[in-house]
């Protein structure tokens, strides 16, 4: 497996640079928005990647609770951390685009608000992992991940109703999407997924190593204390 790591790294670097070139140079300029729209090639793929990572986190949490496999817990930590980073990118690039196009940085629209709430839930997940004692962390975190996943549809419905009841402040420009734009979108998504996979992989190895070190240290401490 380890041999594939450099291959994935090279592939990611290639895809990211090709995606950057396609997004900034090749993709046609938007009729209504001009050049500023190009940020969606980073915004939307980041959002898809973040949601996918949170989904993996949810599945890994259930797998951990059923089989108590430490590897599933390591996957859960890794995907939550990288997912929060991607979700942060979404929340930062969104306002950067909205300001010139909508005229406002932020609107409490359904997608923006539910993404923000999702981000809040996963940040609280990371807080819980950080503050709990290492032995109990996996179980507590897995339970919280399940609660978070149950919460997402309720959040969505509540905001959907909340926002349809109140007037919508702004609506993004409609119109169909050029097929070349789709192509660049998917290319960038592939690049972002590879990058996420790469980061998750190295973070996963680090996590496993850290746990091995902790176990060894605990064992050594036990052996030193026990009478000869």
């Amino acid at each position, binding site marked *: 497996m380890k041999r594939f790591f450099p291959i994935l790294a090279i592939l990611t670097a290639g895809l990211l640079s090709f995606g950057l070139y396609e997004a900034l140079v090749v993709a046609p300029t938007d009729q209504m928005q001009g050049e500023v729209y190009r940020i969606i090639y980073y915004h939307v793929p980041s959002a898809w990647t973040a949601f996918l990572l949170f989904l993996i986190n949810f599945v890994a949490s259930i797998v951990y609770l059923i089989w108590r496999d430490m590897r599933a817990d390591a996957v859960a930590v890794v995907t939550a951390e990288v997912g929060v980073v991607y979700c942060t990118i979404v929340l930062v690039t969104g306002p950067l685009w909205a300001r010139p196009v909508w005229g406002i940085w932020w609107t409490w629209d359904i997608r923006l608000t539910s993404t923000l*709430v999702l981000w809040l839930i996963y940040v609280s997940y990371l807080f819980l992992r950080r503050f*709990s004692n290492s032995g109990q962390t996996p179980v507590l975190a897995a339970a919280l991940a399940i609660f978070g996943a149950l919460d997402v549809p309720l959040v969505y419905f509540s905001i959907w109703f909340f926002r349809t009841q109140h007037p919508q402040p702004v609506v993004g420009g409609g119109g169909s999407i050029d097929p070349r734009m789709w192509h660049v979108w998917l290319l960038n998504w592939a690049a972002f997924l590879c990058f996420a996979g790469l980061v998750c992989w190295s973070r996963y190895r680090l996590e496993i190593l850290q746990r091995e070190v902790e176990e060894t240290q605990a064992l050594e401490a036990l052996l030193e204390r026990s009478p000869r």
Partner: protein
Amino acid sequence: MITLSTITRATLAKDLRLEWRSKDAINSMLFFSLLVVVIFSFVFNPTAEESRHIAGGLVWVAFLFAAVVALNQTWARELRNQVLDAYRISPAPANALFLAKALGNFIFVGVLEGLMTPLFIVFYSLRAVGPAYQLPIVAALGTWALVVNGTFFAAMSVRTRAREIMLPLLLFPISIPALTGMVEATSAILTGDYSAKFWIALLVAYDVVFTIACLFLFETVLHAE
């Protein structure tokens, strides 16, 4: 044969008796929400008409913050003398303990709401324009939504290093849909502008989903080692 209900009843009776004799939780909650009411009145300086629109949010934010005070004490009390550990090694079903704690908190927060609501009405000169009979329903559903998850997360946060601060960090993000439901339903009833039915349905859905999730996962969390 010891059944679920006998253990629940015994634990609940013990908690209520403890609270009746000490009145720690209820006193601190009452004073805390009183402070919130007074501070908000300085922040907004509302007229009666304006206050009707913001009162729904204000009432529930006050109750949410006050409930955290009671929820934090739920399990902290059981840590002394290793009561919680004793419970974990006993054959009693974990869900009986959870139900007792959640019902206890429901009663505490319910009493708080009963005592604080007249004060809100007086201070903000409130009057329901919409159907007032829905208010107790919203209050009961909303309170259960807060305490069922709150009791569960308190059992989690009591194991962490930063106990007191951890509970709101876990509880608030998950409670956002419930809080939206409570606030919107209350505002709908107070202003009479729109129907509260959807929000009540949302609260019912929230209560059902998370009560099941809590009962399903509580034993796992209690025995986490």
